[in-house]
């Protein structure tokens, strides 16, 4: 969902903001009606801010949420580049939600990709105004002046931005369409590995996360929720809870279908601990609702029944059935893959702090979707959106979970009744058992190769607990589930995709890399199976199947970016080269490769493993990424490491299983994650490029699990088709 400048009407906006003192504030906005954006989902446009005060202090505002991905450094870098600033002297600050402007939503690995040009134009516009002001003062033409290091220069003369800001702010803003942008060769900030601005405060306890918000007079609340998905409070007895010292109030709150909040019994208390303790003294009679018998096993049976059945044909190119029928049995493969639910398990559980007064509300929310959070606070409080001040705090992980607004709505429901500022705290158990999980899915893939190792057929039937269906989007249930399988880069001569959604009460939504985490596993496992079936090297086989460079469009969404097989092959080659693909390995070691296209980025991973005395060890991972221009290569490397480790955890350790309509794993003792001693060295290689930047928060995840299971196959001839891997799978 990329934004092209031509599609928008645009204007530079000058404000004399009295609270900032004499300051040049440039905002860059798109009128609401031109945005054409759906209400919720995860991609965002633009709002860039620059503040220069008269003593020359420059503050750059980032309007996207910082959840660990380094956006609080990357976006200001883009502004600083065009503005001509000395990075050392740049301060960065988060832009609070401004109700005049939409989409500070942070997700879909889209923050840099969607705002890169707009940020550059805003920076360039401000620079041109400062240059014009200096030129006027000197009585020369702006062409004879240059801007760098926070000053305008004419030969050895300079005037600092601080001295110019007052007069510059009187000048008209240049047209953003024609303002001169630097050429990539002129970049001095973009493309440099720079230290993140937020890191020092994250080493001394001073960074303020959602749970660290402290407001005078505040109280704490926690909600007892029905353990079964979709259940409700029938009745409750709060006498014992209310008798506890420090308990202020106990009341039921309603579930909300729009945000899929659970509702439950809220306890308001003087401290978090008292609220959590008082919950244990509640006696609640639950109505477990219609899903109380659901389990991972019942779901699995349903999945199998569905893939055995006639499914909806989503895509058909050529005649897969005929191609399969004519292939010799030895060249035909059919296999089933399955993946379980995954929790986001952000390190900081869900929470928010809300204060509702008769005429205004203020909220401190660790959210990836500040607009949606504010809408829900408006809905629960009855206050119009312009009466709501929303501060986005640092957040202890997002991974898509914080794109939800359930916790913000709950904050407002409780704050409305208490009248005091209230922090709603989810326990870890609440967080893990009431997540919006990565869906579970089941895939039956069949295919064939001919004698010359061409892929003659590829048929992929799948079912899952569809996200689109759960959210009752106006899109068909498969629209959220198939990812880039609709753009298969390996050019099978016939290709067919079929799908049907499964019935499930398990809440689900966007987890890091969303459906790509599943589709990537299936496609890259299957291409590996075909390679081995053809007796070919899995890397060579992929390169050969990619064929000539071409662009593969998404037939279901003509507006989305085509897959460029040259870039796909490029990351495969780079990962193979850097990992020493094909060179001998010590005994007991194996290598696997996988590549995937997601969020318009290309990533290939090579995983080297060893299995010694039955113990699997990931020895090292080599990753090659093509994301166009890498704004902050150091930050890119950190995100690749992060996504790979998150993916390894999901492949090797964590899973949410369902029994009696509820999550079995309730805390980190059962939902385990990769430890330091299990974490392999990760070597990241970034393709040097001048293409427009794409995202990197997620795309390194999808090719991680298949590269791992492909390595296991290379070593052991055991094909793992169900994630997460269980020790018994290797026995």
């Amino acid at each position: 969902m990329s934004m092209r400048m031509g599609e928008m009407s645009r204007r530079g906006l000058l404000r004399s903001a009295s609270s900032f003192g004499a300051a040049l504030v440039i905002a860059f906005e798109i009128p609401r009606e031109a945005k054409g954006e759906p209400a919720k989902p995860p991609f965002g446009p633009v709002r860039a801010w620059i503040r220069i005060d008269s003593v020359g202090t420059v503050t750059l505002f980032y309007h996207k949420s910082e959840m660990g991905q380094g956006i609080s450094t990357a976006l200001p870098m883009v502004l600083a580049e065009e503005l001509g600033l000395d990075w050392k002297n740049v301060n960065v600050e988060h832009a609070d939600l401004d109700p005049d402007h939409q989409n500070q939503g942070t997700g879909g690995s889209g923050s840099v990709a969607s705002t890169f040009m707009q940020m550059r134009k805003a920076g360039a516009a401000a620079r041109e105004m400062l240059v014009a002001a200096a030129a006027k003062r000197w009585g020369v033409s702006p062409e004879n002046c240059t801007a760098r290091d926070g000053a305008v220069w004419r030969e050895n003369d300079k005037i600092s931005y601080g001295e110019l800001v007052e007069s510059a702010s009187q000048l008209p803003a240049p047209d953003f369409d024609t303002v001169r942008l630097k050429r990539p060769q002129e970049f001095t900030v973009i493309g440099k590995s720079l230290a993140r601005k937020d890191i020092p405060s994250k080493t001394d306890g001073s960074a303020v996360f959602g749970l660290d918000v402290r407001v005078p007079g505040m109280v704490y609340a926690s909600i007892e929720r029905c353990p079964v998905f979709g259940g409700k409070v029938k009745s409750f007895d709060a006498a014992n809870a209310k008798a506890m010292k420090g308990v202020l109030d106990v009341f039921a709150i309603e579930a909300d279908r729009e945000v899929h909040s659970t509702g439950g019994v809220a306890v308001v208390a003087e401290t978090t601990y008292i609220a959590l303790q008082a919950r244990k003294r509640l006696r609640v009679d639950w109505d477990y609702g219609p899903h109380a018998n659901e389990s991972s096993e019942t779901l699995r049976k349903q999945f199998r029944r569905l893939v055995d059945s006639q499914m909806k044909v989503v895509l058909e190119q050529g005649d897969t059935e005929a191609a399969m029928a004519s292939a010799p049995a030895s060249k035909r493969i059919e296999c089933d893959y399955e993946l379980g639910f995954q929790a986001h398990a952000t390190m900081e559980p869900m929470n928010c702090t809300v204060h509702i007064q008769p005429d205004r509300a203020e909220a401190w929310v660790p959210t990836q979707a500040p607009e949606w959070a504010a809408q829900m606070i408006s809905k629960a409080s009855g206050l119009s959106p312009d009466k709501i001040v929303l501060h986005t705090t640092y957040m202890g992980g997002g991974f898509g979970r914080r794109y939800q607004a359930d916790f913000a709505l709950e904050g407002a429901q409780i704050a409305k009744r208490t009248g005091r500022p209230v922090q709603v705290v989810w326990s870890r158990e609440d967080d893990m058992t009431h997540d919006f999980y990565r869906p579970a899915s089941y895939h039956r893939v069949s295919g064939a190769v001919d004698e010359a190792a061409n892929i003659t057929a590829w048929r992929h039937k799948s079912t899952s607990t569809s996200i689109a269906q759960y959210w009752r989007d106006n899109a068909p249930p498969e629209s959220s589930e198939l990812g880039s399988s609709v753009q298969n880069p390996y050019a099978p001569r016939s290709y067919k995709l079929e799908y049907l959604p499964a019935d499930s009460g398990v809440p689900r939504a966007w987890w890091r890399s969303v459906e790509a985490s599943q589709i990537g596993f299936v496609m890259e496992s299957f291409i590996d199976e075909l390679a081995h079936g053809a007796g070919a090297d899995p890397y060579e086989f992929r390169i050969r199947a990619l064929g000539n460079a071409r662009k593969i469009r998404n037939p279901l969404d003509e507006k989305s970016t085509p897959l460029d097989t040259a870039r796909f092959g490029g990351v495969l080659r780079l990962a193979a080269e850097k990992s020493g693909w094909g060179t001998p390995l010590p005994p007991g070691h194996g290598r696997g490769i996988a590549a995937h296209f997601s969020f318009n980025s290309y990533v290939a991973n090579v995983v080297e493993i060893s299995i010694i005395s039955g113990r699997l060890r990931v020895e090292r991972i080599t990753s090659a990424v093509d994301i166009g221009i890498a704004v902050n290569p150091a930050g890119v490397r950190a995100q690749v490491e992060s996504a790979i480790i998150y993916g390894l955890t999901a492949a090797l350790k964590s899973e949410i299983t369902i029994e009696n309509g509820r999550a079995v794993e309730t805390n980190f003792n059962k939902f385990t994650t990769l430890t330091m001693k299990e974490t392999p060295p990760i070597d990241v290689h970034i393709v040097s490029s001048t293409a427009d930047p794409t995202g990197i928060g997620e795309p390194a995840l999808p090719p991680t699990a298949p590269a791992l299971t492909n390595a296991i196959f290379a070593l052991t001839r055991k094909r793992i088709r169900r994630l997460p891997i269980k020790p018994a799978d290797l026995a």
Partner: protein
Amino acid sequence: MAVSFEVNGRARSVDVDPQTPLLWVLRDTLNLTGSKYGCGIAACGACTVHIDGEPARSCVFPIESVAGKKVTTIEGIGDGHRHPVQEAWIAEQVPQCGYCQSGQIMTAVAFLKKNPQPSPTDVDEAMSNNICRCGTALRMRAAVLRAAKEMKEMRGREPVGGAR
């Protein structure tokens, strides 16, 4: 019942349920929010502080058992300066979301006191009971080794018999 103890060198006295875990006293009563809640069952390490110099998971440590003891939190670890471990964390650009990092740093500081010249394997063992959901383990490993080296050099620079 009031419980008295010391936090970051300052005498404190709180009047709470004696079973209240130290973590919630620090966070809600004393407004020291650097120590984090991650699991509440001693499984993640986000709440790690030092009690009389030993690392402790404050989410399961009742306040009554802290009476008369000395507690150090992330806010006090540097003693007015940045601790070499904090410096190393910045040099290696460890934190991502940052939420687990107070606990990681407190664990690392306590570990390096016991084992000032660790091998990478020692570091892995010591740090493997702390969870980081953002996947910063590689950088933490490098940062602990860097801090060990830096602290060794600092000891070498100190005058003979001199104490800090």
